[in-house]
């Protein structure tokens, strides 16, 4: 067992699950989307991205790309949320919440690709 692989898999999966947790529920209902979960998703995604740094393989490069996409989407979602709840005069309307959640939905897709890559990598690994 490789501890590095355990940590790597843990963070990749946790990023996806947190993201999913935030995303699930009615798109426009602020009650169903916990902002703490969004925060946790952003942090865990950033850590997962850094863990993917410095891998020279092709699959490593794609891993990094998916993570960067997820980061971009989640940070956009966080900014959208901050804008809606702090800057905008209307506050956190259903419309604003919908855009935050749909952005995190995009990130979820990238995270799912990341998990698929992880699974593919694991399945295709053979010890000779």
């Amino acid at each position, binding site marked *: 067992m490789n501890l590095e692989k355990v940590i790597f898999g843990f963070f990749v999966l946790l990023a996806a699950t947190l993201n999913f947790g935030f995303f699930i529920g009615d798109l426009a209902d602020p009650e169903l989307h916990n902002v703490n979960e969004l925060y946790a998703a952003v942090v865990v995604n950033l850590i997962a991205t850094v863990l993917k740094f410095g891998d*020279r393989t092709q699959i490593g490069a794609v891993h990094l790309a998916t993570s960067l996409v997820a980061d971009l989407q989640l940070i956009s979602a966080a900014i959208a949320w901050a804008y809606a709840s702090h800057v905008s005069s209307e506050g956190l309307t259903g419309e604003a919440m919908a855009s935050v959640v749909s952005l995190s939905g995009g990130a979820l897709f990238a995270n799912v690709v990341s998990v698929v890559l992880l699974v593919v990598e694991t399945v295709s690994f053979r010890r000779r």
Partner: protein
Amino acid sequence: MGNPLLAYWHRMFDGRRHDRPSDAPPRTPVPSVTQASTTIFLVLRRMRIPLIVLIVIFAVSVFGLTLIPGRDENGQPFRMEFFDAFYFMSSTATTIGFGEIPNKFTDAQRLWVTATIYLTVIGWAYAIGSLLALLQDRGFREAIALQRFIRRVARLREPFLLVAGYGQTGELLGRSLDALGRRFVVIDRTDTRIDSLELEAYHADVPGLVGDARNPALLGVAGLANRRCEGVLALTDDDETNLAVAMAASLLRPELLVITRTVSPAIAERMHAFGAPTVVNPFDRFGDYLCLAVRAPASYQLMSWLTGVTRAELPPRPQPPPPGRWVVCGYGRFGRAITAHLRDEGMEVTVIEPSAVAAGDAEVVAGDGFEPGVMARADVAHAVGFVAGTDSDTTNLSLTAAARRANPGLFVTARQNEPSSAPLFQAMSVDSVLVPTELVAREALARLADPLLWQFLQVVPAMGDAWAAQIIDRLTSHCGHRAPVFWQVRLDADEAPTLMRWLAAGDARLGEVLRSPEDRERRLDAVPLMVLRGDETVLAPEEDFQLSVDDELLLAGRPAARRAFETTLSVDAAGEYVTTGRYAPSSWVWRRIARDTKVTVGR
């Protein structure tokens, strides 16, 4: 920086002007280093932990701040949002610090913030410290240097040479190449030599790399993989390395010009097994030159003048000794080569060698030359020439002194190993000094100069002393005592468009075109050295030599003469005036008018 105009020229007309198919990709894929691209991966990989530590510290601090209850200005309970917490932590962690916002903190909040301030400082210090340590890392710096080198080589837009080994030879050659406007790339094993590239005031940018030239991958990035590379020079002081470079070059790019240096005939043999490199053995070549100097002093003078550094002074003509017996001191590789050459020339040779290993084939006197009695035993008093050929300069100098004492009229030849001893050899007024590094540089340079000049130099020794003396007279009377510049011209529609009509008319005499385009009464300070017509060569053609289309000319002369001649070849009006004496109008309108009225001015 190279000359941008030249770079443009090569980019536009590269393939057309050179017979060599320079645009064709190398036949065999040339290995390249992947090491360079690892640089960024190395940074990222080593930065993983510091970055994660930083993210975690930030995340914990921000999250903690949102959990701790605060109070707003009315004393009502208030929880910070992530937005406020993130803003506050960002300004605090980066030591900017805008104060407590949005409200004054409670003591509980202050407690937490105090802890996070220290935590974030540690996180930043760790991350920045790791990054700086990484930048100081030797492997990382080498990787950066390699990547920079690859970029610089890739940016070269002109044909360039790859020089492996930048010792004294490389430096001498580099200066001359730079003066000739040639570009080159350097690989050397030691970083002090590569650093010295920066100190040398070259006109052009010379990319240099610290590395082992035996590695084909390094040779690949240094130019073998580049289609603009036109030649490889292996000039290290290690024969094995030179052999490896010659091998790599001729296996991977068989069409390239390869020049290698070696002092061992066995290695030279092995080099010849791969392609057709020009192998320069300084000892062997010096033997040739010494014999030439003895047999034909003027030929020797001409050769050493023309192969010397750019615009060198005419060297003095050697005063050779009469035929007779020579004494060679030191029977190493140099001594053997010299002895063999002198014997080939029909001279009698006595060898002095401390370790009498060479016994058997020669008349050998065992002992050190400067020991009392040894000079007498070798009968230096009745010899005509003396060669001090050991690998120590002090020994050579004392041998020279001892030989001079025994026989003041002796023709003395000495081998100078260190450049720093040059003033001593000069003060001894040794008749002929071998400086191996200099000789290799000159030989390589002659080979790299115009192909026609190389061809010319090859035939000089065979033409005899009187002919060489005549050529020297002709050159000095036209061009003075500084070595002329050489250039070659092919008389075709590309290079001499203005002369085509004149050539086609027949009876085009060489002397008529070597005239100043300002005043055709004045002869240009240029001497035609050779005309190449098909496979036929004419050496030192006379003024009334009849030229025809597609002749190739090798000319020597002052730089101003070269410019004037090129004006004649390329500017219509100048060509017309020089060949016919008519002032042809140069503008389009006047030319149209002149065509109708045939305006002729002057003669």
